[in-house]
Every structure is written in structure tokens, then in C-alpha cells.
């Protein structure tokens, strides 16, 4: 069991800045995030995009902002559980929370801050009827162990980097017996050298490239046996396969957060703006995941919310301790 003062669910910019503000109050944080790296949307979706409304930065790339937030938080030695998503929050008799992840990792703290942004990143699933019926029965969205596909006939759908890279990997390492890459257009948006590699492998017959086409159907007895592929001009045909991998990137969804007994409104957690607390005492929600009258989904507002929330958290964790606001300019940063 991992023990800390504040469990922060979500390692996006707001979660990261909250480490700093908690640290000033000598509270230690442990962050949980479903992505394998900190930064949330900023790192996952738009690392190279400029942001213009962070006070003091006329412009800063999203990825650079995350790097800076990590550096700013470093003196307070935050700990992370990455690549795992928080699935449940249980409460003990002595007012501690236990947050458990999908991999069973348990974390205990007197305070939980949900800084979950848009939620948990999950694979984008194409609109193919019965797709979910075949999940883990031949339909996979993430390739965990390439060897699993040894000697198999595989269809990959998608035109981005992950579709191209896996198609190349599975063919170049001679893992699969047959690989088809199905893509809606004739051009690809992946890296140029990956696109060139795929084209070369297609020219030599090692990748069966099916463009201007989409997978529209799936069938099989208890596991994937066939997919239906619809070509833009040549109509539909059925292909015998062992595995179908739709690789269309990730999208966020509120996911398990919706089941934690919190008041939800318009896909966000309702909070009291006095301290950004939820209806469950000891659980706060900050950043894009919360909602209140006048809410603005801005990083800078999330920074404010986290700052206010840790003051309230301090009072909950140390009800008998006095606390006064200290200025970093006067006191500096006293790390752990």
C-alpha cells in the first residue's frame, strides 16, 4: 500500500502544479495517471502547440510547460503511478481513502484530489457492429506482446503512426504470416519515413495494403474469423483473419470517475467554489474535470483551484495546526 498525504488522480498541468502548492504546506503528493507519462492532454494530444494564456509566458509550448511544471514540483519529491487508471475510491473507518487502480495498485491518503481533466484515455473504437463482442477474442487496440501474433493473419486499420509502425514491426520481424493494412485514404498522415517503408513493403508484397477502404464488419464463432472490408469503389469483400487491430489513437472519457458517488453535471464533477470540494468530504475536484457556476476550462483557472483546495486539504489533514499563507519570495522553496 502506497501512503501519502494527497492522492492526485490525473497528472496533467493542474495535478502537477498542485504538488507545488501542497509542498509549500509540507504535504506530499502521489499522482495516478492512465497515460505512461505526466502532462495529460498537453503531452498526449498537443505537445508542440503553443499556449498564450499562461501568466508570465507570452507563449509556451504545451510540452515545455509540462517540463517546467515537473521541474517546479521536483523539490517536493512527488511520486507517480503511471500507465494505470484509478478505478475505485474506498473510505476506511478512520477517514482515509484507498484509491485502487485497474492493475490493483493501492494508495492510501486522507485527501483525494481529482484532477482528471477530460477523463481516462481509452482507445478510439471504429463504428463496427459487434466490435466489443470480439475484444480480447481477436480484437486488440493495444499490442502488448508482439510474439502473441506469431504466424497469425492480422488486419490493422488506421493511417497514423501507431498503425504504420506496428504494421512495419510485425512484418520486418517476420512475426505474422500475413499482414493487411486498411486505410480510408491513399495517403497516410504518419511520419514520412514510416509511410515510405510501408509503401516499399507493399511493393514487395510483404504488406497487403488496402486503401480507400474501411473495415465495416466482423464475424466468427467465439473469436474473430472474418472481417468485412468495404472499398470505396469496388464494394465489400470478406477476408479470413485471426486478429483485427483498429489503431486510431486514444480519446478521453470520464470512465470510472462517474461511479464514485460524486455529483456529476454535464460530464463534470460539481464542486463548492469555497474550496473546490465535492459532495464527498475529503475529495476535491480541480481543473477541467470540475464544474461550477462561471467555470472556465483554462489551465490558469485550474492552477488557482488547486491552490485553494490544498489550503482546505491542510485543515482537514491537520485540524489542530495553524497555517498562514507564506510567500515564496520571502521564504524560498524548502523541499522535502
Amino acid at each position, binding site marked *: 500500500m502506497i501512503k501519502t498525504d494527497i492522492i492526485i488522480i490525473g497528472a496533467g498541468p493542474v495535478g502537477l502544479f498542485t504538488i507545488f502548492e501542497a509542498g509549500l504546506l509540507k504535504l506530499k503528493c502521489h499522482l495516478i495517471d492512465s497515460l505512461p507519462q505526466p502532462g495529460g492532454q498537453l503531452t498526449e494530444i*498537443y505537445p508542440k*502547440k503553443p499556449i498564450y494564456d499562461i501568466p508570465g509566458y507570452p507563449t509556451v509550448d504545451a510540452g515545455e510547460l509540462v517540463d517546467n511544471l515537473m521541474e517546479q514540483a521536483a523539490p517536493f519529491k512527488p511520486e507517480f503511478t503511471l500507465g494505470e487508471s484509478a478505478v475505485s475510491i474506498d473510505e476506511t473507518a478512520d477517514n482515509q481513502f484507498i484509491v485502487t487502480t485497474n492493475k490493483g495498485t493501492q494508495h492510501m491518503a486522507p485527501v483525494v484530489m481529482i484532477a482528471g481533466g477530460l477523463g481516462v484515455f481509452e482507445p478510439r*473504437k*471504429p463504428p463496427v457492429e459487434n466490435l466489443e463482442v470480439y475484444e480480447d477474442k481477436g480484437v486488440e487496440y493495444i499490442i502488448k506482446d508482439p510474439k502473441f501474433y506469431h504466424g497469425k493473419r492480422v488486419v490493422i486499420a488506421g*493511417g497514423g503512426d501507431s498503425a504504420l509502425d506496428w504494421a512495419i514491426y510485425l512484418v520486418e520481424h517476420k512475426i505474422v504470416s500475413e499482414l493487411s493494412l486498411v486505410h480510408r485514404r491513399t495517403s497516410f*498522415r504518419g511520419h514520412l519515413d514510416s509511410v515510405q517503408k510501408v509503401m516499399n513493403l507493399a511493393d514487395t508484397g510483404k504488406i497487403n495494403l488496402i486503401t480507400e477502404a474501411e473495415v465495416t464488419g466482423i464475424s466468427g464463432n467465439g473469436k474473430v474469423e472474418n472481417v468485412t472490408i468495404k472499398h470505396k469503389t469496388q464494394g465489400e469483400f470478406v477476408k479470413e483473419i485471426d486478429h483485427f487491430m483498429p489503431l*486510431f489513437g486514444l*480519446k478521453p472519457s470520464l470512465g470510472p470517475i462517474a461511479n464514485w458517488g460524486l455529483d456529476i453535471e454535464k460530464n463534470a464533477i460539481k464542486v463548492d467554489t469555497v474550496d473546490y470540494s465535492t459532495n464527498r468530504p475529503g475529495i476535491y475536484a480541480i481543473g477541467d474535470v470540475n464544474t461550477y457556476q462561471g467555470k472556465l*476550462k483554462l489551465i490558469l483557472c485550474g492552477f488557482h483551484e488547486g491552490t485553494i483546495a490544498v489550503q482546505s486539504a491542510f485543515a482537514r489533514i491537520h485540524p489542530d495546526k495553524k497555517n498562514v499563507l507564506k510567500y515564496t519570495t520571502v521564504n524560498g522553496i524548502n523541499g522535502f
Partner: protein
Amino acid sequence: MADNTITVNIIDREGITHELEAPTDMNMNIMEVCRSYELPVEGRCGGMAMCATCQCYLESDHDLPEQTDSELDMLDEAFFVEDNSRLGCQIQITDNIDGIKLRLAPEGN
């Protein structure tokens, strides 16, 4: 009609047409206009052409500016894409789209 206002016609997923007044001087796009009228347009990425939750189909013969690479890239990976697909967030509210007719694409992107 008030100055600096145009009309956009949005057909929702139930087939109902919404005639919306949209300001041309607020630097808005179709996704934002839909959201301001509380139509079911998610606009998850905030307008960066990085999700396709504001995808719509152009059903009038308005001449829109050419699609940017980032819009084409996103539509490349999106679902329910047709030849007349557009991302609402990439259509700016300007005088020359007055009377435009757009149908919301299905949810699921």
C-alpha cells in the same frame, strides 16, 4: 438582422434544423456557435482540429476556404467521414458563409 450577424443552419442528429444567428465579429467558429446554443457538439479538443467530435457535413454549396493539413489529417483518422465532411471548429463565422447548411455527423469519434 443585426449588423455583424449571419445565419447558420445546423441539422442535428434527429434531423431537426436549427437556424442560428452567429456573430462575425467574435472570432467564433461553427463548433463554438453550436456549443453556445447548447447543441450536442462536444468540441473535445477545444478547436485545435485534434478530435473529430465537431465533424459535420456541408449540405449547401457555399465555397469554404481550402481545408488545412491539420483538418485533413484529423479527418483521415475520423469515423463516419464523407466527401463533404468538415470539422466545425475549422469553419470561421464570416459573411461569406451566411445561410450555410451543415448536418452534424454521428457521435462516436
